[in-house]
């Protein structure tokens, strides 16, 4: 990138910082801008999941009974365990951001690795759940069983809608988790090289925000998917 254009006098100091991109005047502006950009991105994510929540709301209000049956077929214990695990990973992520802000390189690396392990554990549990759905014939379009005892065909047809939404919502969530794990791997490598300092830790902060957002989605998915009319059991 050519710098023939020159800079405002104020940016001369900032140029010492090799992380400063040319369009910004100083590091403070760059950091706040990046973080604001991330927030706007998270708003788009809210609306992205919003379409699915919309479909969920409409069909749950129309077929409450089928949604209760669909919910009762999920693995409540694993779902709850996953909630605990994911919240734990949010804690380690928050502490990782704190470590980066304080310039504690070793703590940062280990907290990131802990977050990744917890995230992977979540995905593992989710995988076990998916495996169970396959075994029990709950996968719409593949092997959905319309002859579940106690469920008439008419209701089963509506249970399929619950299951479709379950797979779409948890699948999209899991996809976001996988992306998050990839991003964290990149962070660990960068952190290991000492890239993050108290003055420059924006990537850790941004990916932290992303990870907490993934947690937020699950905080709603858990009661909406796993906890419908559980008292019938």
């Amino acid at each position, binding site marked *: 990138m050519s710098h023939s254009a020159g800079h405002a006098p104020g940016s001369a100091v900032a140029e010492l910082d090799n992380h400063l991109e040319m369009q910004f005047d100083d590091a*403070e502006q760059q*950091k*706040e801008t990046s*973080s*604001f950009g991330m*927030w*706007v991105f*998270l*708003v788009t994510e*809210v*609306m992205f999941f*919003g*379409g699915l*929540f*919309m479909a969920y*709301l*409409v069909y749950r*209000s*129309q077929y409450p009974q089928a949604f209760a049956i669909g919910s009762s077929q999920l693995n*409540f214990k694993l779902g*709850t365990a996953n*909630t*605990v695990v994911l*919240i*734990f990973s*949010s*804690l380690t*992520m*928050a*502490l990782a951001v*704190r470590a980066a*802000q*304080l310039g504690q390189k070793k703590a940062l690396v280990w907290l990131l690795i802990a977050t990744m392990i917890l995230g992977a554990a979540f995905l593992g549990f989710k995988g076990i759940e998916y495996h169970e759905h396959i075994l029990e014939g709950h996968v719409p379009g593949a092997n959905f069983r319309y002859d579940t005892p106690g469920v008439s065909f008419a209701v089963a047809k509506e249970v399929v809608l619950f299951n479709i939404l379950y797979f779409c919502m948890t699948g999209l969530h899991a996809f976001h988790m996988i992306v998050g794990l990839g991003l964290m791997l990149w962070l660990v490598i960068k952190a290991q090289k000492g890239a993050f300092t*108290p003055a420059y830790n924006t990537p850790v*902060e941004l990916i*932290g*925000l992303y990870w*907490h*957002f993934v*947690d*937020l989605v699950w*905080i*709603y998915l*858990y*009661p*909406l998917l796993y*906890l*419908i*009319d*559980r*008292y019938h*059991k």
Partner: protein
Amino acid sequence: MSSQHILPRRTYFLVFLALEVLTVVTALVASIDLGAANTVVALCIAVTKSTLVVLFFMHVKYSSKMTKLTVILGVFWLMILLGMTMTDYVSRLWSTVR
């Protein structure tokens, strides 16, 4: 340096504790028959949990007004999508009787 607000470790642990307690509470409450209130309680707990995450883990409590506004706007627009669509589905039931 407003964006560099460093919280004490204690805060994070307290928020974490609250989140896990609320998770257990929501799981337990779900097994008591409260009728329609079950969903309401579950959602209230979810809102509380997400507010805690947003305010502390995501530092919104210590962020600029612009960030706060962005969060509020995002939630508000989701509510527009859900709420305005439901005006149709809810009021459809009124008009089935001619």
